């Protein structure tokens, strides 16, 4: 084992690179092929799915499944819009409230600061299941059951956003701020015109993580959204699966409709999305 073999760069190195790419391609195909299969199935007819479940080409090529969905028994485009609205609303609320609060925690001295920061840290790792029952009752009392408020606002109250931004704000240099203060700038101006522009990377990371989290949320919307037209995409698809359990092409068309907008968004902003997630671990 310890004998040294003379190094030949070309042969083994090329083999190694080949194995590396082979491994990467295998993993990539494992991800891509099921998605391709879903698209193929969505263009089949019901009878084709049953009689030729494994045929690679739809015969006949059919958009019936999409037609059924568009006819609106299961308002999937409405769910898409609802998800978009809920995720955007939650993201805006988080960005505004967390950045303001984080500024106070990072830059101002005040009574009760330690207590509030302690409370925020204390709730960071509390699992969401703790809030399930009481928040349901609170949302019910607010009259928010079956509205998009229920899936936007309570989830915006978490401690992660303010904690994440506070850590970032603390690390920002204070020289510009001090100069501005000497020039007579107040906290609102310093916050809006100095701190927020400097914090753009952290803000966009938080926006992406919040949006994705809301988009993926499943348990909570199942219970607080009730009417078919008020559902978001995740509980909606689950309902679609229940309604058309034996019509695979329709359910797969639903999966395609649900996937295309996010995949388009993702491909446009993939670098930033991936890097936002990546940085969550290094900073955390």
């Amino acid at each position: 084992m310890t004998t040294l073999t003379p190094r030949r760069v070309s042969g083994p190195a090329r083999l190694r690179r080949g194995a590396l790419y082979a491994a990467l391609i295998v993993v990539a195909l494992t991800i891509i092929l099921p998605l391709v299969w879903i698209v193929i199935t969505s263009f089949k007819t019901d009878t084709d799915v049953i009689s030729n479940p494994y045929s690679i080409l739809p015969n006949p090529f059919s958009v019936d499944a999409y037609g059924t969905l568009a006819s609106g028994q299961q308002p999937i485009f409405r769910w898409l819009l609802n998800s978009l609205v809920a995720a955007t609303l939650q993201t805006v609320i988080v960005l505004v409230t967390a950045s303001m609060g984080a500024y106070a925690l990072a830059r101002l001295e005040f009574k009760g600061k330690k207590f509030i920061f302690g409370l925020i840290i204390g709730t960071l790792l509390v699992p969401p299941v703790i809030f399930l029952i009481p928040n349901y009752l609170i949302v019910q009392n607010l009259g928010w059951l079956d509205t998009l408020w229920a899936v936007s606002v309570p989830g915006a109250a978490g401690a992660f956003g303010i904690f994440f931004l506070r850590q970032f704000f603390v690390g920002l240099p204070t020289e510009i701020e001090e100069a501005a203060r000497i020039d007579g700038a107040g906290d609102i101006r310093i916050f809006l015109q100095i701190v927020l522009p400097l914090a753009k990377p952290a803000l966009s990371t938080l926006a992406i993580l919040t949006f994705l989290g809301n988009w993926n949320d499943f348990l909570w919307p199942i219970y607080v959204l009730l009417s078919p037209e008020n559902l978001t995409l995740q509980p909606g698809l689950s309902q679609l699966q229940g309604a058309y359990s034996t019509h695979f092409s329709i359910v797969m068309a639903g999966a395609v409709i649900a996937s295309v907008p996010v995949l388009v968004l993702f491909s446009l902003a993939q670098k930033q999305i991936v890097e936002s997630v990546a940085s969550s671990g290094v900073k955390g």
Partner: protein
Amino acid sequence: MTSLAPLPPTAVATPIPAPRRASAGGSGTRRRTWTAYAFLAPFLVLFATFVVGPAVFGVWISVTDWSPYKTEQSFIGLQNYIDLVTPGSVFFGDFWQSLGATGIFTVASVPFLLVIPLGVALLLNQKIAGGTVFRAIFFAPFVLGVAVIGVIWKYMLDTQSGMINHLLGLIGLPSDIPWTVDVPWAWVSLVGVTVWWTLGFNAVILLAGLKGINTDLYEAAALDGAGAIRKFWNVTLPGLRPVMLFVSTTTILASANMFGQSYLLTKGGPANQTRTAIMYISDQGLSQNNMAAAAAMSYVLFAFLAIISVINFRLQRDKP
């Protein structure tokens, strides 16, 4: 764009001549406190209403006989908790079965959810063409959301018409595996689908960790004659420790909170064997209207998760 907007009068921090007071909380300090709370107010309103309030409210619910059918609740002390540990009580069997299911899934999934993404991250960390493209492909399933993943794999894993059984048949393996309707296959499916869904998520975090390791350490190891495997054990893994602590903690918690995969793929079956604790608690609390018992269960689950988190933290931090 750079012009300064007119300042609201309250924002000006210039000292206002005020009567001096000897006390520590002079007007200056108080004004800063006011400003700070003005900045914090929107967050604190939400935080109090939907985080701190419910955490306390939940404890109260768990010590009452809360029910949506009653107008008044009475305090019953720890009875709900005592019931949970009393064999033969209404919830005992099902609750502990669901905790067991959560435990099985966590133990079965976490190693794969750490090792496979680590492998993928190591591949991506090589000098390769198209690295960003591969990274984006691996990450893509995560953005689709659990319901899309659920309906896709429910079809792929269908016993009769699923592609997976068909492919197994093509290479001469059994083609009638009950992937979502019988154990242990259901567990294999739940773990496999979770890996497929989230491997890119953990991989990109681990990749960032790998890129953060000082390359001098690798060069020093190479000078000492270390091969690829020794470099991995002696440089890569120790260098990854802080990131690994983060990833393992979030992965353990995510697995222990698993809900959607079981809900969509197995509906908790067969015979509730894959019904996780979260699934049982939400069903009891919000569908069966046993809110008080469900609140108590959620605190028991919380206690378990806290213990596991502390153990994980200790183990990883204290490694030599």
